[in-house]
């Protein structure tokens, strides 16, 4: 199993299952593992202390054994837990100790197979080497015993930074790695909050077949859209959208972010939902003079508020600026001449074309945008 550069950057390791399916594991770095280690340490001491207290109780009830039971039991248990806690738990619980369970980590072989008892033994017994350099107690108290007992884990940290799979010495010797099983991704679906995206999606030529990388880019863009400011969104989307705007024959000042949303609607959403969105878009624009449109950041429109326009303060941040809306609207206006003698209406919405002029234009532009929009630049 090799780690490619891409996987290295993403901290992932590829594993091929017996079903011949390759999937990626998320590797766990030192800062995911430290909390698990500390929890294990706490649990270890808690077990020893609890047992000693239990033994004290037993020995007070049954004075036959005296203090021997407590001291012998305590010492042997401390020894066993200190050295074999990880070995036994990782073998018993499929590569996990209690701390790893709590933090959703697991130890597996580097080839993706589960670890065996030998590997578990090696990596756990060698932990002491990873805990080096040990510092003396005198760091805190000059008068204390010169006992080197404070672990710094320097060896483990340096080793992890030098290996591709965040392995410490114990992991290297045993051929294991620690992976995170935290389910970070959710099965979600995004609905663009901007209804104009649905309208614009209809202006993308019907024969446009997005490439694999464009599909991915669109999905990633939509997933990270909420985290970015409108200006940054336009800047990022511009790289992809500008050539597309040209290709689709849209007006040059179409909002790049809006086009990405439209692409998303076109590629990812089921046809039914897309149609509903387009209907919503028409309803929201119907009856509204173009002049008022800029004041309506449609991102503020809840999907339920179909057609009901509420004036918003112009300062409200939205995915696309009011200016873009005007441009888009005027763009469709300019293509009206073409539209009127263009494609016959075939959709159920055709009856609505007899509405007021402005909304009719808008409506038609939304419906047959691909043809009209491609002609728009030629008219200029």
């Amino acid at each position, binding site marked *: 199993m090799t780690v490619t550069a891409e996987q290295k950057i993403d901290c992932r390791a590829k594993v091929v299952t017996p*079903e011949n399916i390759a999937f990626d594991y998320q590797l766990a770095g030192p800062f995911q593992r430290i909390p698990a280690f500390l929890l294990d340490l706490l649990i270890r001491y808690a077990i020893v202390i609890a047992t000693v207290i239990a033994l004290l109780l037993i020995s007070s009830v049954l004075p036959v054994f005296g*203090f021997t039971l407590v001291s012998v039991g305590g010492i042997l248990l401390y020894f066993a837990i200190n050295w074999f806690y990880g070995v036994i738990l990782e073998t018993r619980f499929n590569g996990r100790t209690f701390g790893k369970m709590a933090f959703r980590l697991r130890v597996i072989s580097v080839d993706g197979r*589960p670890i*065996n008892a030998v590997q578990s033994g090696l990596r756990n017994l060698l932990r002491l080497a990873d805990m080096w350099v040990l510092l003396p107690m005198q760091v805190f108290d000059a008068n204390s015993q010169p006992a080197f007992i404070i672990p710094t884990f320097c060896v483990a940290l340096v080793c992890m930074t030098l290996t591709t799979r965040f392995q410490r010495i114990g992991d290297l010797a045993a051929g294991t790695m620690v992976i995170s*099983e935290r389910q970070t991704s959710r*099965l*979600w679906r995004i609905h663009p909050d901007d209804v104009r995206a649905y309208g614009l999606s209809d202006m993308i030529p019907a024969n446009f077949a997005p490439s*694999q990388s464009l599909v991915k880019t669109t999905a990633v863009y939509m997933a990270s859209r909420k985290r970015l400011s409108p200006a940054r969104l336009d800047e990022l989307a511009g790289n992809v959208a500008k050539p597309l705007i040209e290709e689709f024959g849209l007006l040059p000042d179409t909002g790049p972010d809006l086009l990405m949303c439209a692409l998303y609607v076109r590629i990812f*959403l*089921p046809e039914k939902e897309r149609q509903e969105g387009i209907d919503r878009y028409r309803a929201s624009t119907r009856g509204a003079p173009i002049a008022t449109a800029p004041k309506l950041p449609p991102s503020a429109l809840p999907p339920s508020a179909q057609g009901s326009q509420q004036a918003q303060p112009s300062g409200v941040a939205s995915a696309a600026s009011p200016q873009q809306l005007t441009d888009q609207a005027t763009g469709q206006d300019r293509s009206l001449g073409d539209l009127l003698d263009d494609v016959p209406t075939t959709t159920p919405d055709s009856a609505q074309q007899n509405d007021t002029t402005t909304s009719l234009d808008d409506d038609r532009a939304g419906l047959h945008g691909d043809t009209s929009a491609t002609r728009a630049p030629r008219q200029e």
Partner: protein
Amino acid sequence: MVIHQLLVPRDKNRKSTALITWSPMATPIETLERRRADWVRLDQMLSTAPSASLRGFRGEALLEISRLYRDACADLALAEQYQLTPETVQYLHELIGRAHNKIYPAQRFQYHTWWNTLFHIAPRQIYQDNCVRFCALLFFGLFSASAYMGYYESFFPDFAEQILGEQTQMMSESFSEINFRSDRSRDISINLTMVAFYIQHNTGIGLECFALGPLIIPGILKTAYNATFLGAAFGYMARPGTPGGESFMEFVVAHGPFELTAIALAAAAGLRIGLGWLITGGLTRLASMQKSAQKAMPVIAASCVLFFLAAFTEGLISPTNLPYAFKAAWGIMASTLLMLYFVVLGYPDRTVSQDR
């Protein structure tokens, strides 16, 4: 369709909803919606599983989880083709990873291989391993020298005291309290506590020597320090006038051979891993280190068995009021057995080596 038959075996009892049965015209979101129920169900089964492996599942549930896992694998294989969003693909990676770990659990301790490891692989490895030779020389050499220097107070005044520090007092005090020939009932409690302490202390030393071995120099230093310390303790307690000296000798004679040999072997196993990292023999450093770790495992296993035998002796024979002769005989027997183990079992099998 051909791919479908290859990936998902036909099963008349179920209605497959795997991705590959859907029309390629479906948009990614439609696909996701159709498959979501299965994925969520698999997720749920994994989260509520009663044990770390599939043991908790019976009958129908076992069939169901296998089907869900295979279907999810098929979904992932075709994710690219079906243009699932990267987020969904990531979800599938994580889901399948968890399922995979549940379905293929860790190998338990393979008890039946232990015999072969202990009586065939380990002695041969010990016999021919230069690290074992080096560590045995280092450990027993320093131990003997230190014991000698600790014993001859006139030639090396204060040597033992400097090495042992306050331990001299503690040791002679604790062993002065023990009289193996006296009434047993009074001493047994002190003895057992002390025994428990020595077992954890000495085994801990051995495991430390092993664990520091991969760092090479700390491992060697740790081994050397322990050899010197133990040697000085022996030498000091063997001095004619030391209080508790006789009890000490009677205490250590039975388990000493096992315990000291175990420490030397543990140190050698650790050093073997460290040398694998340093001397690669044409392999990558990592591969060489892992190969050495494989070689070192039988040695550390043998060492652990010796520690166990030492602890057994230390708990059941050393602290009792059995006659000294019996304890000495036990010690001699232990040494003889070790010799036979290393030499007779460890002597290279020519037929095997020629085959290789």
